[in-house]
C-alpha cells in the first residue's frame, strides 16, 4: 500500500515538471490557513536585515522594503507603488549628469504590525539609522551615496544621490524599512528589534527562541490582496526551525516534521526524491564558477595560451563530478538576467585545436610532456579555497584536462586569510572559485582596471569603457547593449573562463502552492503572502 502510494506520487511529482503544471493552474483552491514548517540549515543570528550574516529568509516574511527582486531577478514594487525609472519620472538626472534624484511614491494604507501607519518618515529614518557609523552592520551598501532625503508628504520620498547609482534598487531601501516610531533614539546594536522586529510584512514574529525556532503568524492587516481579491496572506503561520545537521533535516522531511528546505545538498537529492509527499524543485542561483588567470605570468598574458585552455576544458565532466546539477555557462552574466547576451562567443571543447594553437604559438612539448617557450615552462600553481569538496573535485578535473594539452598545474590551496590575501593580491597563476552577485550586479570589481576583486593584474581599457557605460547609465536599452559589449570583450580576451552556474535544490511538500524559487540574495521568502497549502 505504502509502496504504491509512493510510486503514484513519484509519477505525479517528477520534479520541475510538476512545478510547471502547478503554475499552469494557479487558481484552483487557494485555501486560507495552515502552518508551514521550514528547516533552516543555520542559526539565525539576528532578525535585523541590515546586520544578519545570512540571506535573511525568515526576515523576508516579516520585514519589507520599497522594492524587491522577483523570480526573474527583476525589481517589482512592494512598499512603493512603482519601480522608479527615467520614463516614469521617478529618476531625474541632474543637468551636469553627475547626480540623480529618485522619487518613490509610497503605498497608501500600509500598517506596521503594531497598527501604526507606515510613512515617508520611516524611509528617511532607515537611511539615517543605516548610515550611522555606530550601527555595526555589513549591508550598508548605497547609504553613503545618498546626500539627503526630502519627505514633502507622508507618501512621497525624494532621495538625492551625490552620484549616479544605477544599482540603487539592490541596496538600502530594498533590504527593509525600519519603524521610526519604535526605533528612533534606541541603540540598534542591542535593540529587541533584532529578535522580534516590527515590520509591514505578511507575517509577524510571535516567538524567537535562539538556536531553536522562530514562529511567525499571519498579520491580519496586511496591505496586499491577491489578484482574485483574496485577503493575503493565506497561511496562518510559518515556523522556521534551525537544524544545523543536513542528515537531520532530511530525517525531518521523512518524518514530516518539516515541509520546506530551500537548499539541500546535491548528494542527498536521490534520497529526497524518494520521500512521499515531498517534491524537489530546482531554482536558479546568481552564483557562478570561474577559472581566472594571473597576467603577471608572461605565458598567461599570451592570449593564445588562454584560448587554448578555454578549448581544453570540458564542462560536462565538471558538471558530472558535481552531481550533474550545475549548468554550463559562457558568460559571467548568468542566464537568469535579461541582459545576458546569448550571442556571446564560446569555445568548443576541442583538444586537438587547443594543442594546435599552442604549437602555432611556439610552445614546444618538453621534459615530462610539459610545453615551454623561451625558457618559460607552462607549469602553474593552481589555487582554490581549501576544504570545499566540490571545488577540490573540479580542480582535479581541470588539472587533468590541462595535462592533456601539455600544461602542468599544481594544486596550491589555501584557506582563510591566506586565501583572501592570495585572491586579492594575485598569489596564484590559476584560480578556480565562485562569485555571487545581487540582482543588480556590478562586474567592474572583478575585471575592471584596479577593481577591488581583480587580483589578476588584468587591465583592458576597452573593457573598462564598456563597464563604465553599463554601470553609469540608467537607460535599460543602453545598459543592455553595454552588457552585450563587455560580455563579448570578456569572451574574446579571455581573462576569465566562465564555467558553470548553480541551482538550488529546494525540497518542499507537494501541498505548498504558489511557491516561486527566487534566484537572488533576497531569498525565496519574499513571496510568502501568496503561498497556500492545498
Amino acid at each position: 500500500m505504502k509502496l504504491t502510494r509512493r510510486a503514484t506520487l513519484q509519477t505525479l511529482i517528477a520534479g520541475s515538471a510538476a512545478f510547471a503544471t502547478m503554475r499552469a493552474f494557479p487558481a484552483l483552491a487557494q485555501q486560507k490557513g495552515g502552518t508551514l514548517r521550514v528547516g533552516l540549515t543555520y542559526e539565525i543570528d539576528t532578525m535585523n536585515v541590515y546586520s544578519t550574516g545570512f540571506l535573511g529568509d525568515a526576515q523576508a516574511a516579516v520585514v519589507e522594503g520599497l522594492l524587491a527582486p522577483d523570480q526573474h531577478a527583476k525589481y517589482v514594487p512592494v512598499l512603493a507603488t512603482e519601480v522608479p525609472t527615467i520614463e516614469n519620472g521617478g529618476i531625474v538626472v541632474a543637468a551636469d549628469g553627475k547626480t540623480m534624484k529618485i522619487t518613490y511614491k509610497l503605498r497608501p494604507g500600509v500598517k506596521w504590525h503594531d497598527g501604526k501607519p507606515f510613512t515617508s518618515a520611516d524611509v528617511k529614518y532607515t537611511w539615517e539609522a543605516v548610515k550611522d557609523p555606530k550601527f555595526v552592520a555589513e549591508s550598508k551598501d548605497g547609504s553613503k551615496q545618498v546626500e539627503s532625503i526630502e519627505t514633502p508628504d507622508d507618501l512621497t520620498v525624494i532621495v538625492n544621490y551625490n552620484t549616479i547609482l544605477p544599482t540603487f534598487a539592490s541596496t538600502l531601501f530594498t533590504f527593509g524599512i525600519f519603524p521610526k516610531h519604535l526605533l528612533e533614539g534606541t541603540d540598534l546594536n542591542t535593540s529587541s528589534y533584532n529578535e522580534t522586529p516590527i515590520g509591514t510584512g505578511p507575517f509577524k514574529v510571535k516567538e524567537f527562541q535562539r538556536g531553536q525556532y522562530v514562529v511567525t503568524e499571519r498579520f491580519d492587516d496586511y496591505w496586499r490582496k491577491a489578484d482574485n481579491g483574496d485577503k493575503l496572506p493565506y497561511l496562518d503561520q510559518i515556523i522556521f526551525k534551525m537544524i544545523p545537521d543536513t542528515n537531520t533535516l532530511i530525517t525531518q522531511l521523512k518524518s514530516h516534521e518539516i515541509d520546506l528546505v530551500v537548499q539541500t545538498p546535491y548528494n542527498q537529492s536521490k534520497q529526497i526524491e524518494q520521500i512521499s509527499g515531498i517534491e524537489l524543485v530546482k531554482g536558479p542561483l546568481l552564483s557562478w564558477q570561474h577559472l581566472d588567470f594571473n597576467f603577471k605570468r608572461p605565458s598567461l598574458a599570451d592570449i593564445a595560451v588562454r584560448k587554448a585552455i578555454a578549448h581544453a576544458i570540458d564542462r560536462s565532466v565538471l558538471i558530472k563530478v558535481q552531481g550533474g546539477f550545475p549548468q554550463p555557462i559562457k558568460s559571467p552574466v548568468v542566464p537568469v538576467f535579461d541582459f545576458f547576451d546569448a550571442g556571446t562567443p564560446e569555445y568548443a571543447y576541442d583538444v586537438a585545436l587547443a594543442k594546435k594553437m599552442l604549437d602555432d604559438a611556439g610552445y614546444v612539448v618538453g621534459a615530462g610532456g610539459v610545453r615551454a617557450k623561451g625558457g618559460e615552462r607552462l607549469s602553474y600553481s593552481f589555487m582554490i579555497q581549501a576544504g570545499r569538496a566540490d571545488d577540490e573535485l573540479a580542480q582535479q578535473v581541470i588539472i587533468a584536462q590541462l595535462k592533456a594539452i601539455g600544461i602542468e598545474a599544481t594544486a596550491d590551496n589555501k584557506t582563510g586569510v591566506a586565501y583572501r590575501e592570495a585572491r586579492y593580491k594575485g598569489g596564484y597563476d590559476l584560480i578556480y572559485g565562485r562569485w555571487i552577485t545581487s540582482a543588480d550586479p556590478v562586474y567592474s570589481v572583478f575585471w575592471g582596471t584596479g577593481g577591488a576583486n581583480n587580483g589578476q593584474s588584468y587591465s583592458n581599457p576597452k573593457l573598462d569603457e564598456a563597464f563604465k557605460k553599463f554601470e553609469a547609465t540608467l537607460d535599460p536599452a543602453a545598459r543592455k547593449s553595454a552588457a552585450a559589449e563587455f560580455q563579448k570583450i570578456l569572451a574574446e580576451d579571455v581573462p576569465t573562463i566562465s564555467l558553470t552556474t548553480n541551482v538550488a535544490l529546494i525540497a518542499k511538500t507537494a501541498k505548498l502552492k504558489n511557491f516561486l524559487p527566487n534566484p537572488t540574495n533576497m531569498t525565496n521568502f519574499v513571496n510568502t503572502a501568496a503561498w497556500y497549502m492545498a
Partner: protein
Amino acid sequence: MTFAYVFKRLLGTIPLLLGISLILFAIVHFAPGGPLDVYADNPSVSKEALEQIAKAYGLDQPAYIQYFLWLKAVIVGNWGYSIRTGRPVLTEILLRLRPTFELGGLALLFSLVVAIPLGILSATRRGSKLDGALTLASFAGISTPVFWLALLLQLLFSVQLGWLPSAGYQSIGDGSLFDRLAHIVMPAAVLSLATIASWSRFIRSGMADVLNQDYIRTAYAKGHGLLGVIMRHALRNAMIPAITVIAVDFGTVISGAVITETVFAWPGIGRLFMESMDGRDYPMLMGLMMMGSVGIIAANLVADLAYAALDPRIRYG
C-alpha cells in the same frame, strides 16, 4: 584542614586559567580564517563595511592588545560581544547552559545508574558468558560513532514508528515536561552509550581487584551476604579509580556535546561552539573554551575531595 586545602587549590587555579587563556587565544587566532571570512564570496559587502566591523570588535588591533581587551571584558564586563550575533558572550552562554545541563546531566545520571550494576555484575561473574557478552557490548558501545547511532535511532523512532520527535528541544507552543522528555530521550541515550561502556569497564576492573582482597574474605567469613559485602565493603574501595573518570566526565558536561547537540538540533553549548567555530567568532570561542577549562579544573578538585571522602587514609593538607 580541608577548607584551607580547597582555598589553596582555588588560588592556584588563577595562574592556571591565565596560562590556559593565553594558549587558547593563540590557538584561536592562529587557526586559518577569521571572523570576516564569511563575506569572502560576496563582492557587495564593501571594504568600508568590513573595516567598520573589524573596528567595532577590535579586530584591527594587534593581537596582544586584543588579548588584554578580552581579559578586561572577562573580569569587569560581559565577556565581550559575539561577532556573529552582536550580543554579549555571557548572555549567549547563559542562554545555552540549561539545555546543556539537562541533556548532559540526564545522560550521566542514567550512565551511573546503568554502569555501576553492569560493572559489578561483570566483576562478580568474571570469565562467565555474561562477562564476555558485557565486555563485547562495552567495546561496541565505545566504538559506535555518535552521529551514526543518532541517525539510526531517528530513522527507527521518528520516521518508521513515529513515536518520538527526531530533533529539537521542545515542540512549538508546548514545552510541557512530557514534551521535553520526548525530545531528550534519544539524545540522552546516544550520549550515555559511550560513558556507560567506559565507566562499567572501570568499575569492573576496580571491583575485580578488590574482590581478591583478604578483607573481603573476612567479611564473608563474618557471615555477610553477597550483596552486603559488595555494597558495604567492596564498592567504596572499587570506586576510587572510577571516580577520576566519572568526575572528569561530569566536568566536561559544561562544554556541551558538540556532535550530539548538532545532530539533534539541541540548543546547547556544544552547538553554540560549532556555530561559533564555523564563523570564527573569537570572543564566543574564547568564552566557551574557558568555561570548558573551568569545568575540568573543578571536576578534578571534586575528584580529589571525593577520594578523601571515600578513603579515610587519604588526607590533604
